[in-house]
């Protein structure tokens, strides 16, 4: 007997081989896993007919009978774990041993979770059972997986859950409450073993379409991708949101590349597959016709190809058509929204393309704009194998983080340890546990224990150490005190009762003592860092860099090491001679000269060409210019070094670009400019990040082009006409024009990209150490 573990089981899941209800076949939807030592062993979805367990009355079928009763029991057990409200928190499901060879015998088909591309969940309506459609990555398997129908009326586990929900939160006035159906608990179960990403509600973050997408979630036919790659998600998003407007977009006319076309085809193949299944059961195409006779508003929109297409594929039309009057209003609003969205999107493309002097492609803009797939906990966990080793490339992981950030602080807590180099990307779970132990012992034995309990570290004078501690203490006391964990100076860090409040206000004395545990930990970490890096010492701004790290990790040892690694790249900002920060300003100045020559000209006239006004933003990586949540996202993006280890300079460049016009038109002096950038408020960090990415791409292209041209000039100085054939033919001409326009070069003269600018293309972190010792 080969044993395995039953992970999930649902009874009364039917297939409908024909149109006759009498021929419907009941069965079990099962997810199980073989017990094996192979870490890659994968969960399997299967479906078994009920009668497969009952066929022969012979003695050998005892096993089967046992399994049948096991399954029936399991069905109810799993149902007990269903939680109607929570989709994000993980339930612990019971694991039940099962004989997998018997399951295999009884099953109609099997598919590895890793082979599933997507699952469509179709909620029941008054005339149809709810059903799911499983699409596999390999095409030929699809034919073997029929649509599975959940017969909720006869399924004991579903009925039990429905009853339970009725008891717990019956609210006849809550129209928004979703009606539970059998597919819901399967979906919830799946989120515990893989990363499910909905592609229907991808636009739910747009305020204007809120009503629509929430309706869509509740009643629509939701398609979920299983463990999708970022590429999958991008394809799907563009499909639904902006593919149809492409032909209408003037900017895209002459720009379709071969790659783009094939990408298009890919998208349609995927959508087509799903549409096929949908067509089996629904015929929504009559709805627009019907509506056009009722709604003059809509008629206009129905002529729009984009709107029309969306109308046809709209799932809620089915429901809405029950009531013509409400459908009319609803659809009019919806169509208007869709139209506005489409236009908004079109404008964003055009504006960005213009701002980048048309040197970036629509596809590059699309990738930069597409930030709606943050790294979820499920996704993050799905990236690791059973030994806890990353099983996708670091590049792909960073792509996720760069283009979407972490979804919440739970993910962040794990991801940051990798981003900040505390854990190597290729480590296993065991290795990390080992590492943590040694990091912990080194932290205490080599650093913290050297000062703990009023000691002066052996290689420092008492006076110097006292001075450093004094500086740290002063800054920790006034660090991010608006954040909950740092707010109250009480032993728990929380405001417990009014006595504590007294303690809180004991700050009458400027030498008040820190008793808030979190502030104390910040102080400990900074003092230990002072021992770790005595040459640098404490500099103002370091608390700003540590505070978010500790806030997210909330662990002294981990935060210390994460901070140490962060400081590796930030040390150059704090050198006594300011050489590191000046070098960055020089780089930024050259970059601005290259990318935003008009702005640079004006800044020079204003005696501001040293870009001194960027000092604070670069020093502490914009910490003082954005909200805390935004800083977490900005920093984790910088930490990826996805394009450049100095991406902060491109972000700064994006800020400059966005403020170019007001600066050029209104500001005339050094002080004015300093003032202006010192008090920039309400910066849209996402827009800036999109621009930063596009500016990088543009910069990279300029460098590639200049290099290509220079090498051609030096290779064949006699024949400058051959310059056009260097890189991809379609890109050459516009860039050449552009470069001339930017007065970068006389086409016949060599233009050199300085070494300083070239460092921007490198992903390797630049480390500069303080040399002075006290």
């Amino acid at each position, binding site marked *: 007997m080969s044993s395995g573990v039953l992970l999930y089981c649902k009874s009364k899941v039917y297939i409908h081989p024909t149109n006759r209800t009498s021929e419907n076949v009941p069965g079990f939807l099962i997810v199980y896993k073989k017990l094996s030592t192979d870490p890659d062993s994968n969960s399997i979805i299967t479906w078994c007919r009920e009668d497969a367990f009952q066929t022969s009355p012979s003695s050998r079928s005892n096993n089967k009978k046992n399994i049948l009763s096991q399954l029936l029991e399991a069905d109810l057990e799993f149902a007990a774990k269903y939680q109607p409200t929570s989709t994000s928190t993980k339930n612990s499901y019971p694991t039940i041993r099962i004989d997998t060879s018997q399951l295999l015998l009884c099953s109609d088909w099997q598919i590895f979770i890793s082979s599933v591309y997507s699952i469509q969940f179709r909620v029941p309506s008054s005339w149809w059972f709810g059903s799911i459609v499983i699409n596999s990555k390999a095409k030929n398997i699809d034919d073997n997986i029929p649509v599975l129908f959940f017969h909720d009326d006869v399924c004991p586990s579903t009925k039990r859950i429905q009853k339970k929900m009725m008891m717990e939160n019956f609210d006849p006035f809550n129209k928004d409450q979703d009606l539970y159906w059998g597919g819901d608990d399967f979906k919830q179960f799946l989120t515990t073993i893989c990363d499910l990403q909905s592609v229907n509600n991808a636009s739910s973050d747009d305020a204007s379409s809120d009503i629509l997408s929430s309706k869509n979630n509740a009643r629509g036919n939701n398609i979920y991708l299983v463990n999708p790659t970022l590429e999958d998600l991008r394809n799907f998003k563009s499909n639904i949101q902006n593919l149809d407007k492409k032909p209408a977009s003037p900017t895209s006319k002459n720009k379709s590349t071969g790659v783009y076309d094939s990408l298009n085809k890919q998208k349609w193949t995927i959508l087509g597959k799903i549409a096929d299944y949908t067509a089996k059961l629904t015929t929504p195409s009559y709805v627009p016709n019907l509506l056009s006779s009722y709604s003059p508003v809509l008629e206009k929109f129905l002529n729009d190809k984009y709107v029309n297409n969306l109308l046809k594929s709209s799932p809620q039309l089915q429901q809405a058509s029950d009531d013509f009057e409400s459908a009319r209003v609803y659809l009019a609003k919806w169509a208007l929204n869709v139209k506005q969205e489409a236009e908004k999107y079109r404008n964003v493309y055009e504006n960005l393309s213009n701002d980048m002097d048309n040197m970036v492609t629509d596809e590059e803009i699309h990738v930069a704009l597409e930030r709606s797939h943050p790294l979820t906990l499920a996704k993050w966990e799905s990236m690791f194998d059973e030994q806890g080793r990353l099983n996708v490339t670091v590049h792909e992981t960073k792509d996720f983080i760069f283009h979407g950030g972490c979804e919440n602080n739970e993910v962040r807590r794990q991801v940051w340890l990798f981003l900040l180099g505390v854990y190597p990307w290729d480590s296993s779970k065991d290795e990390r546990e080992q590492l943590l132990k040694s990091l912990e012992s080194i932290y205490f034995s080599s650093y913290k224990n050297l000062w703990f309990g009023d000691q002066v570290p052996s290689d420092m004078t008492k006076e110097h150490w006292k001075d450093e501690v004094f*500086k740290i203490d*002063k*800054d920790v*006391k*006034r*660090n*991010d*005190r*608006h954040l909950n964990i740092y707010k109250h100076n009480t032993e728990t860090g929380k405001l417990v009762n009014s006595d504590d409040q007294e303690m809180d206000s004991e*700050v*009458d*004395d*400027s*030498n008040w003592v820190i008793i808030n545990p979190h502030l104390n930990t910040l102080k400990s970490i900074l003092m230990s860092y002072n021992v770790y890096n005595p040459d640098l010492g404490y*500099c*103002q*701004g370091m*608390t*700003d860099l540590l505070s978010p790290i500790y806030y997210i990790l909330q662990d002294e040892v981990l935060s210390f090491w994460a901070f140490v690694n962060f400081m590796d790249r930030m040390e150059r900002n*704090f050198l*006594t*001679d*300011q050489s590191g920060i000046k070098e960055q300003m020089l780089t930024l100045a050259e970059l601005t000269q290259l990318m935003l020559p008009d702005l640079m000209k004006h800044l020079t006239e204003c005696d501001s060409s040293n870009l*001194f006004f960027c*000092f*604070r933003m670069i*020093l*502490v990586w914009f910490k*003082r210019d954005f909200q805390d949540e935004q800083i977490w996202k900005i920093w984790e993006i910088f930490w990826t070094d996805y394009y450049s280890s100095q991406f902060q300079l491109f972000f700064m460049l994006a800020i400059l670009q966005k403020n170019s016009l007001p600066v050029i038109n209104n500001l005339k*002096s*050094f*002080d*004015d400019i*300093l*003032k202006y950038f*010192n*008090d920039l408020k309400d910066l849209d960090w996402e827009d800036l990040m999109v621009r930063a990415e596009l500016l990088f791409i543009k910069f990279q292209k300029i460098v590639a082009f200049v290099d290509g041209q220079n090498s051609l000039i030096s290779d064949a100085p006699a024949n400058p006409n051959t310059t056009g054939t260097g890189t991809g033919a379609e890109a050459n001409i516009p860039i050449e024009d552009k470069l001339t326009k930017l007065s970068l070069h006389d086409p016949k003269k060599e233009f050199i990209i300085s070494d300083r600018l070239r460092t921007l293309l490198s992903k390797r972190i630049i480390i500069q150490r303080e040399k002075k010792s006290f």
Partner: protein
Amino acid sequence: MLQYKLVLLGDSSVGKSSIVQRFVKDSFDEQRESTIGAAFLSQTIKIKSPNKDNDQENDEDIAIKFEIWDTAGQERYRSLAPMYYRNANAAVVVYDVTAKDSLNKAITWVDELKSKVDDEKKLVISLVGNKIDLISSTNDINESANSPGRQVDLLDAENFAKEHNLLFHEVSAKTGKGVRDVFYEIATLLYKQKLEDDALNKKDTNENEDRSINVALSRPSTNDPTSCCS
């Protein structure tokens, strides 16, 4: 309206930002974050014209706008300070009366200003001892165990100020005591300077445009104090 650039200098955590906040917003925040680079604020005040006997019209209040640069105090960033104090009309150099070393730092700031600013006589410097609320009223140095008490003697600081021709105040940003006076005194002095300049220039030339050009040349200020924009 007259505009003047004023810069705050002094050791870290002596209360530069708190003094500005008290002056500009009349509020106090125990947990003010440290300043990085510099912060900018502005505040307009009205002072009485000093020579009211001359003319009825002059009896009106004079509006004076301060553009205040509040700098970071840590030694590490000292080399950046010239960026902020260049073209300043006034400087408030702050120390903490409960931290002895902070007066020494303040003295070095005064020296630096005197040596680096071209027109030393015109730069108005006010030496300000902050945090007098921390000194209990009954005592002198080191009396209470909880409080560090006064560490900088009032006379020492006052004498230094006199010797170097500085304005001098002891204040509390927390209670607000004395803060207003610091800025009103500076404003009055700056206005007096302006009147003197005007008088001088009138002798030189009768043309108004020339007058402003002269001043601009003597002090290449971006916030030319003589530019009237009201």
